[in-house]
Structure formats: structure tokens, C-alpha cells
């Protein structure tokens, strides 16, 4: 039941926020905030309750609920939670709280409807992270887009409409291809077993031809890498992120992109291990290209928000690299990178949003020397800039480092090139901080510093990123059981994950 509540609470919170919005701008904010806090506490309780947190047992599903929905078609309302979903749902409600708090003063129009959309897209994202029925998954996958579309199209900045439409078309088209692939899998499974079902646990290990498997996997993969996004499907991202209101950007970068990564982890690879294995070189190449290309483009931006948006392309490249390296270290790294990127990029978007609210521009040409008037903002900005470049001691470093170690055993050249992404990240991050907070001070810029509310938000985000940076073990333990199960599912049929590419690994060297 608790899983249903996790989805229902934001849904109801959103409805209530909207209903009580007549002539009252404060109430919807409070309702949303409280609903999300309840959601967060529920997940936290779930986390505390299970021994997996300390790495004690290795069960895969912590909670599992399976109800009939449309039995005629083999569709069930199947939600389940393992360590991976748990972490992601926790991230969802956490960033949800942050985005409500961050847009407290930014949104002045149609406040109720804004929060309705915010909450419903969060509910959709939560649903994506929990569904174990492919139809249900697709249902939530589509459901989260519509409110997101409204968030961008109604409360966004100058070119919001075209950005929103572009975002929607990209994700819809790729989503429909995934639907076709889901149905393909459904019929392939039925052909082999005679059972028509969309249930993930039953569809695992479906036998299929290799071309068939590759085509179906590509259907899933396209939907996920568009979301992730990987080059060359990233073009929707800078526009959508830049034009969205702050809360929208946080959710887009912090959560929506993660649904792509989650989809790869949960569905694309375990359902089609053979095809995924064949596809690994291409995927890793895409990942590396994304890392470098995103970084280079980020460096070329003058719009601060656009810069942050492009860094996402670069950082999510590491996630893709980690997923397709498919060994434990790399997967753990990908999970930590998912979480830390969500938080650090979310924080950067909040800072950009706060800046824009104050000086009404995102153009870095017109910033500079902000540190003197806004030292707190500068300090926090610097910290997350450093997190973004992968400074040891902050969460992103752990993620990227683990990914690189894991990927190293799979392909040394790829890993070497990917590692140079860290250098680029240093360049653009420091450059960004330099251009905005230091340098010659623009006389007319006398900006108020972060206020109590914003500092509280930042304090939480800083705490999490530092905590994961210093002591990532709880996160690793939580994800461990789930990741092992995923590896087992995929590995049961192939040597996936134990790939011996013609590269010398540490083990080889020992035996020589």
C-alpha cells in the first residue's frame, strides 16, 4: 500500500493545491510542501526500516504490490521497490521539496495550477521509478510529460513555447517507439510461452532472435537516451532547461533525465542482455562523445543557465558509460552520479534562478563581481561549481571516479578519453564561477544575498552532497542488492558484466 501512497500523496497534494488556490497564493505552496515532506518522510521510514541500508541482506524487492488492472491484456498494476528505486524515489521527493521552496517567490501567476503541474509531474516520475509492469511504466512515462510541458510552456522564459514543444515532441516520439518495442516484446514473449503479459519479472529472460532483440532494445534505448540525453539526441535539453522556470529546471535536470538512466538500468539492459552487449561499444562511444561534447558546448555559452544545462549532457555521459560498463563498480558509480548530479545541478539551477530573479538576466557578460554583494550566494555557487568539476570530498567525485574505475576494466581508451572530461569540467566550472562572482564588478549590480529560505534549501543540498562525498557507503549498500539482482538477471543469459575485452586488467597483471 505504501507504494501507492507514495504516488497518491503528490497527486492529491496537487489537486488540493489547485482547488485552494482561489485568491490565495500561499496555501498552494504550503500544501505542496507539506505533501512532499510527508512523501519524503515515508520514503525515509522505508529506508530506515530495511536492513539493506547497512548491506545486511541481499533481497531484491523490499516492497511489492501487484493488483489486477486490465487482465484481458495481461496488464497489472504492479509496483515494487528495491534499493535503486528507493534511492531514486527519495531523490524525487527531496528535489520536489527543494523545487517548491525555490520557486516560493519566483512564481506569481496561477500559483495553484503551477503547483498542480509540479506535483503531478513528480507523481509521474515516482510512478516511473516504481512500475514493474511495462504498460504501467509507459503510462507513467507519458504522464510525467504533460505537466512538465505546462510548466515550461506557461511559466517559462522568453522562448518557452518552442522549447516546450520541442521537448514534448522529442520525448513523445521516442516514447512511442518504446511503446512499439514494449508491444513487440509482449508478442515475442507470448509467441514463446503463450502467456500475454506486460509484467517485467515474467518478461525477463524472454528468448528471442538476435536481430529481433536488437530492434526491440533499440526501441527502448531511443526513449531512454533521448531522456538521458545522449548525443545526438540532446538538442531538446538546452532549450527546455534554459526556458523552464527554476522548479522546472530542477525537475528536468534532477529527475527527468534520471528516468532515462533508470530505464536503461532496469529495462533496456536486463530485458535484452545480448543486444545490449552487442551495442556496448556504440553506447560507450556515445557516452564519451557526450561527455566531451557537452563540456565543450558548456564552455561556449554566455547564458548561465544554458551553461549549466550543457554540463548535464556531459555529466550524464558518465552515467551512460557506467551503465554500459555493467560491472558492480561502474553501476554503483552511475547510481551515485545520478543522485549527485541531481542535487548539484539542481542547486546550480536554484542559484541561477535566484540570480535571475534579482538581476533579470542570465547573461554572464553582464555579471561579475557578485561576490562582494552576495557572498553567501557566491560561496554556495563555488561549492556546487566544485562539485560539478568533481572535487574529491564532494559526491560527484565519488560517482565519476567509480564509473571510471569500472569502465577501465572494460575499455581503457574509452576511459582515458572520458577522464579528460574531468579536465574540461574544471575549466568550465571555474570559468563560470569566475565570470559571475569574481572579476570586474558591474557598478549597477547591487544584489541582495540569499535569504533565509534560500539558505535553508542550500544547506540541505550542501549537506547531502558533502555527506555522499565523504561517506557514500549507505548509498552503496542500499543500491547493492538491487544492482546485483539486475546484473544477475542480465548475466544469467550472457557473459555480460564479466566481459573480457582485449584489455589488460589489474587481475591479468597480477598473474603475469
Amino acid at each position, binding site marked *: 500500500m505504501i507504494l501507492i501512497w507514495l504516488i497518491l500523496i503528490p497527486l492529491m497534494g496537487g489537486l488540493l493545491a489547485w482547488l485552494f488556490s482561489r485568491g490565495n497564493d500561499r496555501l498552494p505552496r504550503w500544501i505542496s510542501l507539506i505533501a512532499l515532506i510527508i512523501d519524503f518522510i515515508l520514503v525515509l521510514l522505508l529506508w530506515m526500516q530495511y536492513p539493506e541500508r547497512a548491506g545486511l541482506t541481499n533481497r531484491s524487492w523490499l516492497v511489492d504490490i501487484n493488483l489486477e*488492472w*486490465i*487482465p*484481458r*491484456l495481461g496488464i497489472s498494476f504492479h509496483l515494487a521497490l528495491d534499493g535503486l528505486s528507493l534511492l531514486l524515489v527519495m531523490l524525487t521527493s527531496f528535489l520536489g521539496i527543494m523545487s517548491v521552496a525555490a520557486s516560493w517567490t519566483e512564481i506569481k501567476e496561477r500559483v495553484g495550477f503551477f503547483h498542480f503541474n509540479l506535483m503531478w509531474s513528480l507523481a509521474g516520475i515516482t510512478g516511473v521509478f516504481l512500475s514493474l509492469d511495462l*504498460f504501467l511504466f509507459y*503510462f*507513467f512515462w*507519458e*504522464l510525467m*510529460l*504533460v505537466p512538465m*510541458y*505546462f510548466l515550461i*510552456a*506557461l511559466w517559462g522564459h522568453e522562448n518557452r*513555447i518552442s522549447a*516546450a*514543444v520541442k521537448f*514534448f*515532441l522529442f520525448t*513523445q*516520439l521516442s516514447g*512511442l*517507439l518504446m*511503446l*512499439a518495442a514494449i*508491444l*513487440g516484446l*509482449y*508478442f515475442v514473449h507470448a509467441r514463446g510461452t503463450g502467456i500475454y503479459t506486460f509484467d517485467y519479472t515474467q518478461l525477463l529472460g524472454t528468448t528471442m532472435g538476435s536481430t529481433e532483440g536488437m530492434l526491440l532494445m533499440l526501441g527502448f534505448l531511443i526513449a531512454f537516451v533521448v531522456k538521458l540525453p545522449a548525443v545526438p539526441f540532446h538538442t531538446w535539453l538546452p532549450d527546455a532547461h534554459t526556458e523552464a522556470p527554476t522548479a522546472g529546471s530542477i525537475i528536468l535536470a534532477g529527475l527527468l533525465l534520471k528516468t532515462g538512466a533508470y530505464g536503461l538500468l532496469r529495462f533496456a539492459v536486463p530485458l535484452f542482455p545480448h543486444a545490449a552487449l552487442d551495442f556496448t561499444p556504440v553506447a560507450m562511444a556515445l557516452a564519451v562523445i557526450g561527455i566531451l561534447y557537452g563540456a565543450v558546448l558548456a564552455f561556449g555559452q554566455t547564458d548561465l543557465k544554458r551553461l549549466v544545462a550543457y554540463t548535464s549532457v556531459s555529466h550524464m555521459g558518465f552515467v551512460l558509460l557506467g551503465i554500459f560498463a555493467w560491472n558492480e563498480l561502474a553501476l554503483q558509480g552511475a547510481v551515485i552520479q545520478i543522485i549527485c548530479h541531481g542535487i548539484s545541478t539542481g542547486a546550480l539551477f536554484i542559484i541561477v534562478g535566484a540570480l535571475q530573479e534579482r538581476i533579470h538576466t542570465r547573461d554572464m557578460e553582464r555579471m561579475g563581481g557578485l561576490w562582494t554583494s552576495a557572498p553567501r550566494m557566491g560561496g554556495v555557487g563555488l561549492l556546487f561549481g566544485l562539485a560539478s568539476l568533481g572535487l574529491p570530498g564532494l559526491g560527484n567525485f565519488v560517482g565519476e571516479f567509480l564509473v571510471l574505475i569500472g569502465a577501465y576494466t572494460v575499455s581503457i581508451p574509452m576511459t582515458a578519453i572520458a577522464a579528460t572530461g574531468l579536465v574540461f569540467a574544471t575549466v568550465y566550472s571555474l570559468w563560470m564561477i569566475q565570470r559571475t562572482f569574481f572579476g570586474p564588478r558591474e557598478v549597477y549590480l547591487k544584489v541582495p544575498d540569499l535569504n533565509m529560505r534560500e539558505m535553508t534549501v542550500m544547506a540541505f543540498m550542501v549537506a547531502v552532497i558533502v555527506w555522499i562525498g565523504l561517506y557514500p557507503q549507505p548509498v552503496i549498500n542500499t543500491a547493492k542488492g538491487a544492482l546485483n539482482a539486475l546484473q544477475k538477471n542480465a548475466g544469467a543469459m550472457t557473459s555480460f558484466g564479466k566481459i573480457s575485452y582485449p584489455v589488460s586488467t589489474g587481475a591479468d597483471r597480477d598473474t603475469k
Partner: protein
Amino acid sequence: MTLNDLAPLIPLMVIAVSSVIIMLGIAFYRSRAFSGLLTLAGIAVAFITLFGVQGTRQVTSLLILDDYALFYIGLILAASFVVALLSSDYLEGRRENIEEFYILLLLSTLGSSVLAASTHFVSFFIGLEILSVSLYALIAYTRNELNIEAGVKYLVLAAASSAFLLFGIALLYGETGTMEFSRMSSGISAQGINKGMLLTGFALVLTGVGFKLAVAPFHMWTPDVYEGAPAPVTAFVATVSKGGVFALLLRYFIQVDMHAYPSLFGAVAFIAVASMFAGNLLALLQKNIKRILAYSSIAHLGYLLVAFLAGGVMRVTAVTFYLVAYFITTLGAFGVVTMLSGKERDADAVEDYQGLFRHRPWLALIFSAMLFSLAGIPLTAGFIGKFYIVAAGAGSALWLLVIMLVINSAIGLYYYLRIIVVLYAQPGHSEVSAVSSLPLTGSLVLVLLTVLLLWLGVYPEPLIEMIHRMTMRF
């Protein structure tokens, strides 16, 4: 034919008798309320009597009342009921005498119902003509310039298409020696059949039917007629008239087994793809809501044909579910247009809807729900419908068609979203938004349709079960 045979025809007869009573009533005393209420009552009674028909009843060789026919007749009656409710307020003040409108409405409903129950070319043709002839008058009913133009256009083209259809029927009859659908397949497989003649016959029938369904390349009339006709009549043309014809087409091609004729299959596949692309691409260029919906309906018929081409059990279920969703959505969308229309002209310019969410949040929400359903977004019936169609297509491995459908859905999304964005934009200056209060009946109907839309989108199981039971006995 015995008296016993008449019993299953009661629903059809109730409709016919209601129209006659209204006609006679007008001769003595004109009353809007009387005609309107009698129409509603007639449709309601006919609907209830549908449940009294037990089992599959073949009435002469012309009509069959099986579950399939009953389901479609029910759907047609429900849609006519909604149209009758919507038009009562709409017609007020647009024309002096509006009582005849109901007669025409009942007659065309009757025609469409006959189509759904036909198993014979004669009943097919009679049903089609009852439907079409009443539609000519309905489309031109409020007698402004656009109306008349649309009516005449429909008249000329429908007459031409009927001629095609008749010629096709004649050819098929000449070759097979029968006009009964069920006996046609055995007639076809007989020795010494001229294949060329047969296919020409099929092609001509398909042309005639294609015109009624407004599928490409027979779609040219659609946007003009949709734009010109009064909004509730447009809803009627889009749903009742197409629904009946589609029901017939499905029955006909299942009984004749279309899959045995690759060229016929190819022709329908071509029509499906052409309709999807023509509808969606042309809709992108439109600035008029009615025209957009017209082109969108062309595309939706294309989607339907994809399921139609699929084989297996899923075909009928997918088509039927999609049609139900399409009925609800189309009625809802045109319902909103009807409600907003002023006396001078219909609210059909996209600008009329700018900022609708500000003045009329509920109406804007209902309209968005309908558009989302057309676009196939979750929580709406359209989503399940589209899912079903893709499933049917994938189940029969019609991958090319499925991919076309996917691409077209994305194109379609673009113009639905454009309207939706306008709904929530800053209000512009439009006289339409100044309509003082909305009629109560219309509002209730729209709310009901929306509830139905969401209900089917979230919990489609009962309807699926019902359709499935119906197809089992098909």
C-alpha cells in the same frame, strides 16, 4: 418475414416512429420543447430496447442484430443523444423553425444504425442513403452562406460517391451472383470468377465508403463541410455518420476475408498511411479549430484502418474501443466549440480560444482533456485506444504501419499542443469569450463526457470485457 422477426427491430422502429410523430406533430402545433423532448425520449427508449434483443437475430437476409450490431447501434444512439442535447441550445435564435432539425437528426441516426446491422448490399445502400440525404439538410440547416456551401458540396460529392458505390455493388453482384455478405465469400471462391472485375468492384465500393469515412484520397470535402456545418452537426458527421459506415466496413471485410486479397489489403494500407499523413500534415497549416479537427479526424480514421488491417481477435476489439474513445473525444471537442459559439458565427478561430482558461477554467480543462485524448496522452480514453491499435498492429507484425502511426502521432501532437497552449495563454480580445453564461444541459453533457473519458482512460477493463464478449460471438 414473420411478426417474430419484427421484435429485434424494435429499436430501429422506435427511432423511425419518433421521427414520424414529430413530423405529424409539427403539422398541427409547433413546439420546440415537444420535438426536442420527444427526440430524446425516442432515442432513450430505443437504447433501452436494445437490451431486450436476445442472442443473434438474423432478420431476413438484410439485417442482423447480433451483439456487434447492438453495440454499435447503442454507440450511435448515445452519440445522437448527446448531439440532440447540444443542439437544443445551439439552435435557439439561429433559425426560426428548429423542429425539423430533430426529424432529420432521428432519420440520419436511423440510417447509421441500419448500416451497423446490415449484412446485405441493399440494406447497406438504403441505410447509407437515409443517412446521407438527412445530412444534406442538416449541414445546411442554419442557412447562412457557409452552411449552404457546405451542404451543396456534401450533396454533390456524396451523390457521386453513391454512384461509385452502386457501380461497385453491381460489379460484385454480377460476378458473385449475391448481395449477401456471408454468401459473397463462397461466391468469390467459386470457379470461373473474373478476378479483375471482382477487384474493380471492391475498389469502387471502397471508394464510396472511403468518401463517407473521409479517408485520403477521398477527404477533400471534409474540412469545408466541417467548417461550414453548424457545430453540433459537425459533431454528428464526425461521429454517427462515420461510426455506422465503419461498423459496416469492418463486418463486410471480415465476412469477405480481406486478407485473401493482397491487392485489396495493399489498397487499404495505402489509404491508411495517406490519411494519417494528409490529415496530420494539413492540420498543421490550419488556423480554424473546426478545420483542424476535420483534418485530425482524417488522421484518426487512418489510425483506425491500421487496426482494421490487423488480423486476429484484437482487430474488432481495438477498432471498437478506439471508436468509442473517438466518439467521446470528438463529441466533447465539438461540444466545447458549440458551447462557445456566439449567434453570429461559430467559435472556430484559434484566437477565440486564447486565454480561455482565464474566463472559463472548466471549459478549458475539458477541452484540453479532449485534445489530450486525441493526442493519446495517458489518463484519457484516447491513450488506451491508441495503445490498443498499436498492439493490434504489432500483434499482426504490421511494423511499417505501426511506425507510420508512431510518426504521425508525434506530428499530430504538435497541433494539439498548439491549441492547448493557446487555451492557457494570456487572454486576447475576442467577442466569443464574452458569451455571458453557458447553457446548463450542454455543461452537464460535457462534464459527463469528460468523466467517461477519464474513466475509460484509467479503468478500461469493463468496456474491454464488454467488447470482447461481443467479438467472441461475432
